[in-house]
């Protein structure tokens, strides 16, 4: 049948054009005259009320589009079960999902909350409508990820760790690192938080590693569910990136904003790097069993997405507005990944700390060693012995690797800023802020705490800027505790009241699984508490010693 005779053409009636529809919808707002909106979330930025032109969409087309995406996701989950996905899934991979999926729903819903903050500041109602859709998207992301996690819990061989997920999120040292991300979206200066940190950096740059690198690796490990959910999540991000860019463009022409924008781009880029690369780098490189030498390593992915796509095509063009771009930080982040082994040191740290995790980490094996050495020349010399030690000490009855003095591992300080430990020893630094000593993984993180999160910046008052707070050094919470008591307090014990949720192996067999009795008798300590107790001279000497690093002892 020729096109001209289709039913659609016969009955189609004239409708509103999409640009007319979005123009009408944008005209719903007005400037209040009886009661002013309270400026509840302050910012030190000046926002020009010049409407920009973000993506054109109205809720009438948005909701059916999203429902259709959902139908595909839930259809794929059903299909995965019918296809017996879990029979072939790699437990090494799914175990890391206990950590990843414990963290991510809270940053997602925080992004929804942050839309309240930018919604009020939005220059023009079209952009406010964009933020409203993003709010509902982020509600989608948070709950669709909770659903995925429940689905793993119901169908994966070892549900322990999924069953305590949100409680574990509140207590685990690793999930706190992710919480820094989420709280950063909603607390402090509204533009710093909800525009620069969330959208201009996290969503624009780092969701690619989160929501594209992770799914590829999941699929290589027999997990077809995570790609379905996360690629669907990622498909919403281009709208968010567009929203964020529109708001950025309404700030950037005012030279008064440049100083703050430079501060926030620096802070946000470095902290996103420190947090996301630590976590996602570890999941992708150490959570996989696929050692195909033709696939891209995390470093290669980073170069493509962060360096080429983000730095070169998004950040550099900002220079033409007169913004100073922190080229040296981008280079430093790249060096941390390829020269200083940032990801490998993080994976090592996570595995050293296995008794206080709520997921299992198995040892890396010969096949893994070859791949790492191929992708990261020199890896074996630095990490080979460590993973052999880890395997040896994974057997019940050994002294756990965290407290085993034979390995030569030195437990690290924690960074007060990004909350990842100070793993690149040579970069360790410390400083005094409001009379107290703090430790940092890097100069950039020291600057973030002391200089950026403060009441003034380069002589300019910044009354809206947030502050770091809380018990940011996790170890301090259990300073002086017996390891077994700490694990009990964390709630990382299985329903029998003695077997640990975390295990340093993938044996699904009670006779091989560690219990509280296997880890009792070791006392946890806070490196920062001890560091603060030193005299200034002793402290400097300790720092010099720390920067020298450590060597893992040979294993026979």
């Amino acid at each position, binding site marked *: 049948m020729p096109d001209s005779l289709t039913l659609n053409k016969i009955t189609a009636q004239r409708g509103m054009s999409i640009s007319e529809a979005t123009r009408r919808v944008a005209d*719903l707002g007005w400037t209040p005259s009886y009661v002013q909106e*309270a400026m509840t979330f302050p910012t030190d930025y000046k926002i020009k009320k010049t409407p920009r032109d973000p993506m054109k969409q109205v809720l009438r087309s948005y909701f059916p589009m999203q429902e259709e995406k959902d139908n595909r996701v839930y259809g794929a989950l059903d299909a995965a079960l019918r296809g017996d996905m879990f029979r072939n899934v790699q437990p090494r991979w799914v175990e890391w999902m206990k950590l990843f999926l414990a963290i991510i729903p809270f940053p997602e819903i925080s992004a929804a909350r*942050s839309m*309240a903050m930018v919604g009020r500041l939005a220059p023009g109602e079209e952009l406010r409508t964009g933020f409203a859709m993003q*709010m509902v998207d982020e*509600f989608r992301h948070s709950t669709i990820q909770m659903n995925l996690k429940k689905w793993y819990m119901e169908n994966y061989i070892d549900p322990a760790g999924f*069953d305590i997920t949100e409680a574990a999120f509140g207590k685990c040292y690793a999930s706190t690192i992710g919480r820094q991300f989420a*709280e950063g979206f909603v607390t402090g200066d509204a533009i710093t938080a909800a525009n620069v940190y969330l959208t201009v950096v996290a969503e624009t740059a780092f969701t690619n590693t989160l929501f594209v690198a992770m799914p590829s690796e999941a699929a290589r490990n027999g997990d077809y569910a995570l790609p379905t959910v996360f690629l669907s999540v990622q498909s919403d991000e281009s709208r968010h990136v567009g929203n964020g860019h529109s708001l950025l463009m309404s700030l950037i022409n005012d030279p008064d904003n440049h100083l703050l924008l430079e501060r926030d781009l620096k802070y946000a880029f470095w902290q996103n790097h420190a947090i996301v690369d630590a976590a996602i780098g570890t999941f992708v490189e150490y959570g996989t069993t696929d050692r195909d030498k033709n696939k891209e390593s995390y470093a290669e992915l980073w170069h493509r997405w962060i360096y080429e796509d983000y730095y070169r095509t998004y950040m550099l063009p900002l220079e033409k507005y007169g913004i100073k771009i922190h080229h040296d930080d981008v280079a430093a982040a790249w060096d941390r990944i390829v020269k200083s082994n940032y990801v490998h040191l993080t994976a090592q740290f996570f595995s050293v700390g296995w008794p206080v995790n709520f997921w299992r980490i198995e040892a890396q094996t010969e096949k893994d060693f070859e791949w790492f050495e191929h992708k990261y020349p020199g890896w074996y010399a630095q990490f080979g012995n460590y*993973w052999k030690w880890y395997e040896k000490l994974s057997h019940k009855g050994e002294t756990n690797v965290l407290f085993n003095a034979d390995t030569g591992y030195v437990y690290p300080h924690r960074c007060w800023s990004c909350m990842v430990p100070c793993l690149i020893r040579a970069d360790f630094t410390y400083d005094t802020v409001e009379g107290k000593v703090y430790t940092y993984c890097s100069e950039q993180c020291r600057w973030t705490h002391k200089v950026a999160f403060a009441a003034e910046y380069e002589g300019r008052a910044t009354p809206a800027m947030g502050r770091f707070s809380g018990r940011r050094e996790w170890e301090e919470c259990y300073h002086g505790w017996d390891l077994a008591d700490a694990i009990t307090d964390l709630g990382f014990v299985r329903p029998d009241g003695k077997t640990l949720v975390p295990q340093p*192996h993938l044996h699904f067999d009670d006779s091989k699984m560690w219990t509280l009795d296997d880890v009792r008798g070791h006392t946890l300590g806070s490196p920062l508490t001890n560091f603060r107790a030193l005299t200034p001279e002793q402290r400097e000497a300790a720092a010099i010693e720390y920067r020298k690093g450590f060597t893992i002892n040979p294993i026979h």
Partner: protein
Amino acid sequence: MSATQQPPEQKSGAAGSAQFSGSDSRKFNYFEPKGRKASHYEDMTVDVQPDPKRYLLQDWIISFADGTPTYDESWTKAQSSNWHQFRAVDQEWERTHYQRQSTIVGMITNVIENGRRAGAPKRFDKAWVKVLSDHLGAYKHAEFGLGTATMQAQRYGYTQMINNAILTNSSYKLRFSQDVTLYLGEIALDIEGIDLDAGKTHWLEDPIWQGTRHAIEAIMGASDFLEQYFATNIVFEPLVGELFRSGFIMQMAASQNDFMTPSVVSAAEGDYERNLANAVELFSMLALDQKFGEQNRKLFVSWMDKHGALAVQAAHQMQPIWSLPRVKVAQFADALELAKNRVRAIAAEIGFDARSTLDH
């Protein structure tokens, strides 16, 4: 390099392929379900927003400049012995939300398409067409105002359950304000002389609408998020929103030869039933609180006084609209009395006294 480890003997990663401690622990076990078993909504929602009083070991780790943490109970004057007790009656999580919203926009789209195909808008009474463009056109801004007020409010609640209920409320209000906008734009394609800018002009300038605009701006401008949520659902919706939607549009339209508008507007009544159920659940929980119930009830009376006075004034200022249609089948006084009765019933359900606002 030498081989260091045999691969584990386990072959399948599927549930049930091995028995060991914890291998059958397949339920989220960190919260108390409201019913005998946790609902899917609870599993998706509870404890995602953490709390130092529950599991947040390291406390909130960023604060505002004055030391206020990321979430703070002082963001409303209402107090609770346990904010985590609240569950949304409509049990929404993303999937149910998109399904419902999508069904509504599908229904509205069909009504408009079929109605236009049948030439229905051309048969609307002429005086009624002007009522729609001037006054339904003005009213859509009130809906938008409630949508932006609740979008703001969803940042502040102390639990995920409270904030998500306010978030879906915002989504419903914003959708409906757009539904009406697009509906008017589409019937304008079929009817000569509809002025699509008239609604906003009436909203900003017509004395009939200034009370309503004042009431809406008072909700948008309130800095207590629960006051915003209360004023939206317990005060404005029944006294002004339903009064206009049900007491005027739905009652009058058929007699003006208009069978389309009631279908479009009825969606808002369905939305409100759900938002109201959620709000009543939350405010009655607070009114019944062992420790803070008394002061919460006083607080609700003060919110009712403040926003109720504005809403009653708004309602009275709308009265002339009832005499605009050529065929008059509904009386303002009857509609207002129904609206007041509705508020009395809602207040009774929550457990506070609304008489000081309504009975004079």
